[in-house]
C-alpha cells in the first residue's frame, strides 16, 4: 500500500505548476460541463497539445506530443489543472472516442487526415450510434449503408446526437451487411455533416437546453474509403471506446468536486445544523469517499495490467447516481429557493443545482442505462444467466 507518486512524478508535478503559472493568463475561464469550442479555447488547446498536457500520447507525426503512455502523469495533470481551476482544454467525443479508435483501427491516410485537426479542436465530430429503435439494444441499429459505385448510400435516423450542429463530421455505426448476424453486420463510417440528404433537428433536453439532436439520412453518399476497419467489423471498433465513455461518465473526481460545493451550500443555508440533512450529507460523504478509493484501486489494477473483474463494472452506475443524489441534497437544503432557475432573482449558483440534477438523470440513462449496467454486473460480474427471450410485440394475442 503506497499512496505517494514518488520523486520522479513530483518533479513532473512541479513542471506543470510552473507551466500553469506562466501560461494561465492565456486560458479561457473555466465553466461547467463540456468546454465550448471558441477561438480562445482552440488557441489554449494548441498550447496544451504543444506542451504535452492534452492528447499527450498521440504520436508526433499525427500532430501530438508523442509521450509514452503514463497513467499517473495523466492523473497528475488532471489534479493540477483542477486545483488551479484552469481549463484542461477541449473535452470532446472526437478527442476522447474517435482519436483512440483511429489510432487503433484507422488507415495511415485516415490518421494523417483527421487526427491533428481533431486534437487541436479545428475539426469537430459528433457520434452517430443510438437510434430511436436502438437505444439500450444498440446492436439492433437499422441505419443502412449500401454500396453504390465508389460510395456507401446511407439511409436512416440517429438520435441523442450531441454537437451535431457544430460538428463537421460524424463517426457512425451503420448496417452494411443485412444478412449477417446482428453484431457482425455493422460498419464504422465517417460521414461529412454537410452531405446532401443529411438533415439535423435539435432536440431540447428537460433542462431547456438543446443539447441533443436527431440526424436524418436520406440517400446520403459517403465515399467507401471513409470506413474505419473492415466491413462488418464496426461493432468491435465502436465498442472499444464505449467502455471508455462509461468510465468517463462515472469519474469520482467530479463527485468529489460536487460534494465539496454541496457542503458549502449546506453550510451557507445552515442545513448542517439540521440533523436530518447533516445525516444525509455524511451518507453522501461516505459514498463519495468510497468511490474515490475505489477508483484508486481500479487505477492500481490498470497500472499493474490486472483485470479488476466485476469491481470494474460499477463505476458508471454508482458515479452517476451519486452525483444525482448530491444535487438533490443541495436543492433540498435550499428549500423553496431550490426551484429557482437561471436568470431569476435570488437564484443560487446560477441555477446550476437543478440543471445539474436533471442533467445527471440524463447521464444515468446515457452511455448505457442503469438497468443495462445492472444486467452487465449480474451477468458478466456475478455469472447470472441472461433473461430468456420472450415473443416479440405483435406475435401474441
Amino acid at each position, binding site marked *: *500500500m*503506497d*499512496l*505517494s*507518486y*514518488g520523486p520522479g512524478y513530483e518533479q513532473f508535478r512541479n513542471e506543470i505548476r510552473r507551466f500553469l503559472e506562466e501560461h494561465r493568463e492565456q486560458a479561457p475561464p473555466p465553466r461547467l460541463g463540456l468546454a465550448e469550442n471558441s477561438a480562445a479555447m482552440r488557441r489554449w488547446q494548441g498550447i496544451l497539445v504543444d506542451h504535452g498536457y492534452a492528447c499527450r500520447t498521440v504520436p508526433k507525426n499525427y500532430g501530438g506530443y508523442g509521450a509514452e503512455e503514463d497513467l*499517473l502523469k495523466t492523473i497528475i495533470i488532471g489534479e493540477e489543472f483542477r486545483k488551479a481551476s484552469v481549463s484542461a482544454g477541449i473535452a470532446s467525443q472526437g478527442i476522447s472516442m474517435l482519436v483512440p479508435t483511429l489510432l487503433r483501427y484507422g488507415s495511415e491516410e485516415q490518421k494523417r487526415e483527421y487526427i491533428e485537426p481533431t486534437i487541436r479542436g479545428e475539426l469537430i465530430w459528433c457520434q452517430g450510434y443510438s437510434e430511436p429503435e436502438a437505444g439500450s439494444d444498440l446492436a439492433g441499429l437499422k441505419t443502412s449503408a449500401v454500396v453504390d459505385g465508389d460510395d456507401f448510400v446511407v439511409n436512416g435516423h440517429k438520435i441523442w446526437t450531441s454537437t451535431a450542429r457544430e460538428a463537421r463530421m460524424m463517426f457512425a455505426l451503420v448496417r452494411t451487411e443485412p444478412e449477417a448476424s446482428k453484431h457482425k453486420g455493422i460498419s464504422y463510417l465517417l460521414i461529412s455533416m454537410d452531405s446532401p440528404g443529411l438533415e439535423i433537428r435539435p432536440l431540447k433536453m428537460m433542462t431547456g437546453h438543446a443539447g441533443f439532436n436527431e440526424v436524418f439520412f436520406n440517400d446520403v453518399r459517403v465515399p467507401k474509403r471513409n470506413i474505419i476497419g473492415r466491413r462488418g467489423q464496426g461493432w468491435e471498433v465502436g465498442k472499444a471506446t464505449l467502455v471508455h465513455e462509461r468510465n468517463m461518465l462515472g469519474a469520482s473526481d467530479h463527485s468529489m468536486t460536487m460534494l465539496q460545493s454541496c*457542503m458549502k451550500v449546506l*453550510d451557507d443555508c445552515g442545513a*448542517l445544523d439540521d*440533523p436530518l440533512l*447533516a*445525516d444525509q*450529507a*455524511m*451518507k453522501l*460523504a*461516505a*459514498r463519495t*469517499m*468510497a*468511490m474515490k*478509493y*475505489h477508483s*484508486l*484501486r481500479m*487505477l*492500481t*489494477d490498470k*497500472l499493474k495490467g490486472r483485470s479488476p473483474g*466485476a*469491481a470494474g463494472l*460499477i463505476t458508471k*452506475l*454508482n458515479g452517476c447516481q451519486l452525483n444525482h443524489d448530491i444535487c438533490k441534497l443541495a436543492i433540498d437544503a435550499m428549500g423553496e429557493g431550490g426551484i429557482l432557475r437561471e436568470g431569476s432573482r435570488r437564484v443560487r449558483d446560477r441555477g446550476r443545482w437543478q440543471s445539474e440534477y436533471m442533467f445527471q438523470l440524463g447521464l444515468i440513462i446515457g452511455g448505457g442505462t442503469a*438497468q443495462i*449496467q*445492472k*444486467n452487465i*454486473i*449480474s*451477468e458478466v*460480474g*456475478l*455469472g*447470472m*444467466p*441472461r*433473461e*430468456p427471450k420472450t415473443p416479440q410485440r405483435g406475435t401474441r394475442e
Partner: protein
Amino acid sequence: MDFGLSPEQELFAHSLRGYLSQHFPMQRVRTLMEAEHRADPERIEALSGQGLAGILVPTDCGGSGLALLDAVIAAVELGRAATPVSFHSAFVAAPYLLSQALPEPSMRGWLEAIAAGKSLLSFARLPAKASSGKWNGSASFVADAMVADAFVVASGDDSAPEFYLLPAATPGLSVEPLLNIDATRVLGDVSFEAVALPARSRLPIADPAGALRRVLDAGRIVLAADAFGAAERSLESAVEYSLLREQFGRLIGSFQAVKHMCAESYAELEPLRALLWYAAFAWDEELDDASYAATLLKSHCCEVATEVVANAVQVYGGMGFTYDCDVQIWFKRAGYDRQMWGGPSELRARAVEMARAGV
C-alpha cells in the same frame, strides 16, 4: 502509487479462509452458537492459529506485530466464516492498549498469553471515574464478559480517560450476561462495586485521549470489516442459490428482479472494500483524516451490509427465513456489527462535527 493489498496480504487472506473453513466449518459454528456463554479454551486456542490472536501483538511478545490493515483482512474472513470471536475487543482493542503500555513489564505476560491463545481479554468502557481509589458503576455491552480472563477498562470521559487492567477474579467485579441476536459473539455487563484499584493495574499510556480515540477507531474499522465479510459471503451464497433454484420453469437467477437486486447489492458493497483498506491504512499511518474515514466507513459499511444480507434472505425466499439457512447467521452478525460501538446515525453525527471542524 499502489493502492491495494500486497501479494503476501492476499496470500494471508487465502490461507486464513482455508484455515477457518477447516477449523470452524458452519457445523462447528452452529455448535458453538449453542454453547454461548460457556468458557471454551479449545476455541481460543484454535484462534491463535494463523497468528489471528496475536495479529497486533508485538513480535517480541510472541505476536505477529502486523498492521491494522492486516487485521482488517482477517476481520473480513472472520465475518465471512461467522467465526465465533469478538475480534474487535479481544484481538484488536485489548492488545493495542496493552502494547501502548509496554514499558510496564507486567503487560508483556498478558500480551504473550493473548498471542498464544492462553488468555481471553476484553475491552470495557466505563463512563464513571474512580473516586477515592474505589470504583463503582457498570460497563455495558462488554464483549465476552462472562468468559474473559481479564478486562482492559477505559474509564472517565473521552478527553481524559484512564486505562486499567483487571483480572476477572478481582474482588467487587461481577458479570452478568446479555442475550444478543448474534450468538457467535457474546456480551454482558460488568459491574464494579467498591473495586480497589492497585496502582500496578493502571496502564501507563502517554496520550490517553489519543489512545482512546485510536482504539475506538480501530474497533470500528474491524467491525465494519466483519460486516463487509458477512455481507459479501451472503451475497455470494444467494447468487449460488439463484443458480440452483427453479420456479416457473426457469432458474430464479435469470429473473431481472433477482439479478438487479444482486447487482445493486454488489455495486453498493464493493466500493467499501477500498474504503476499508483506506481507513485501515490511514489509521496505520496516523493520517489527518483517519478518524473521519473510520467514522464514515463504520456508519456506511454496516448500513450497506445489513441491506445486502437482507436482500440475500429475500433471494432465498422462504428458505432464507429459516434457522437452517446460514444467511440468518450473517444477518445477525451484520446486525451486531452495525449497532456496536456506534450505530450509523450516531457516527454520522460525529462525522459532521469533524467535517465542520475542517478534517
